């Protein structure tokens, strides 16, 4: 079993393609959707962790490509240098997936890696450069 983090980009004319259901049914994959931005009128994106047998994942990626839908595999991950963080919250202003939020208890920054789509926006928005991609 293996898990890859994937962003799937649907062109406008493929918005209704049954990609996710096919991945589940035909390729026995487990799909954990982290972020979805899909509407009928514009390019849609879906970010998900996909878990299954290595061969099934390979076949599934082949299928997605053949269906005329683009995908990107995340290879990097976000590194938060927590010791240098001042918990100002500036990064939460740009995080598209709610991976970065402020605790309403002690107002410290909370990072939920599961939800991170590795977009890198916070690395630029952080005034102390404590976020980086690696």
């Amino acid at each position, binding site marked *: 079993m293996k898990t890859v983090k994937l962003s799937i980009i649907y062109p406008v004319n493929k918005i209704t393609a049954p990609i996710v259901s096919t991945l589940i049914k035909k390729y026995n994959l487990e799909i954990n959707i982290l972020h979805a931005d899909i509407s009928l009128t514009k390019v849609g994106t879906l970010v998900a962790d996909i878990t299954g047998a290595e061969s099934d994942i390979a076949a599934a990626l082949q299928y997605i490509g053949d269906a005329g839908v683009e995908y990107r595999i995340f290879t990097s991950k976000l590194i938060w240098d927590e010791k240098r963080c001042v918990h100002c919250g500036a990064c939460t202003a740009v995080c598209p997936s709610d991976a970065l939020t*402020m605790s309403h208890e002690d107002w410290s920054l909370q990072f939920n890696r599961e939800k991170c789509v590795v977009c890198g926006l916070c690395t630029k928005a952080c*005034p102390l450069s404590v976020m980086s991609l690696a």
Partner: protein
Amino acid sequence: MAKTIREINERIRTGTAVILTAEEIIGMVKEKGVAETARNVDVVTTGTFGPMCSSGAFLNFGHSTPGIRMNKVWLNDVPAYAGIAAVDAYLGATEMSETLGMQYGGAHVIEELVAGKDVELRAESYGTDCYPRRKIRTTINRNNINQAYMFNPRNAYQNYSAATNSTEKIMYTYMGTLLPKFGNVTYSTSGELSPLLNDPEYRTVGIGTRIFLGGTQGFVAWEGTQHDPGQVRLENGTPAAQAGTLAVIGDLKKMDSRYIRAAVYEKYGVSLFVGIGIPIPLLDEDMVRRTAVTNRDIMTQVVDKSGRENLNLRVTYEQLHSGSIEINGKKVSTAPLSSLKMAREIAANLKGWMEKGEFLLTEPVAPLPMHTTRLNRLEIRGDFHEDR
């Protein structure tokens, strides 16, 4: 029953003063009422830790042999203002490096000096009879220069407008990254914990007030630049947008780099996070009421940073803290830019200093102005060319 600062100081000295933070006082007043709180509590401590661009430091490097009348100075390639006496300079926090641009600036040099690190000093001169040397290169740190004191012309803004962006394009501002079409709102005040929101009409904070500045004891030196006490105020006296400001001074050599941090705002430039805490003596019931102010009672305006739309929108800090507000019927997420976590730490530290008798209150030498004259605007009288 009114108290004097002298009486409170006596209690601080003998370890009997009762000190609460500006958050703790809220619960106390709710539970015990204003009169009993006024009898029992002596001081409220406040705190703020946010980006404060209008900051910098005066430095005196000491003389070399032969001497130099420095007229151009760089610290780690960041220019400092040398148009003062021979080896004096003022390093502004937002000044940018001539080699690294806005990635590194005066704020970073200040943070490194506070942390005790070595900094490269380069200076040039035209040479005079009494100061013949024309160039010098050396390293300085906080221990081998004479004076290093922070003098920040405008800190501790009393309230500040929240920012948003109505345009189709992302905006990079000193209020952080503003996403298009009202994609987010940023705000930068510690609300009910903020120093000047707890003494909104400057009854106790004035020139000469001893404060927590960057981890050591500093002072209020003057009204800050752009001090605007005539701002529209709510019934409780707090201003509905930016109003009062403070010029503050303190010994950089004694500061702690935990409370002085350099910052870079993308495509905007360099700034400096400054930690400030101000004690508010509870002289009477009026001051108890002032310091018991909550995020629900403090408002600010929301401003479209593109200047395109006049939103005419006022929100409370409670709403801003909740994580979202409504703009034109749409739910928009809010994000802070100043650290409430650090502001709490500062208010708690200041409280600790007083409990240990290490920090005494001061009577202001002179009050901060409370005039109603509003700020001047700069008229544009034309362009100019390089050759003029």
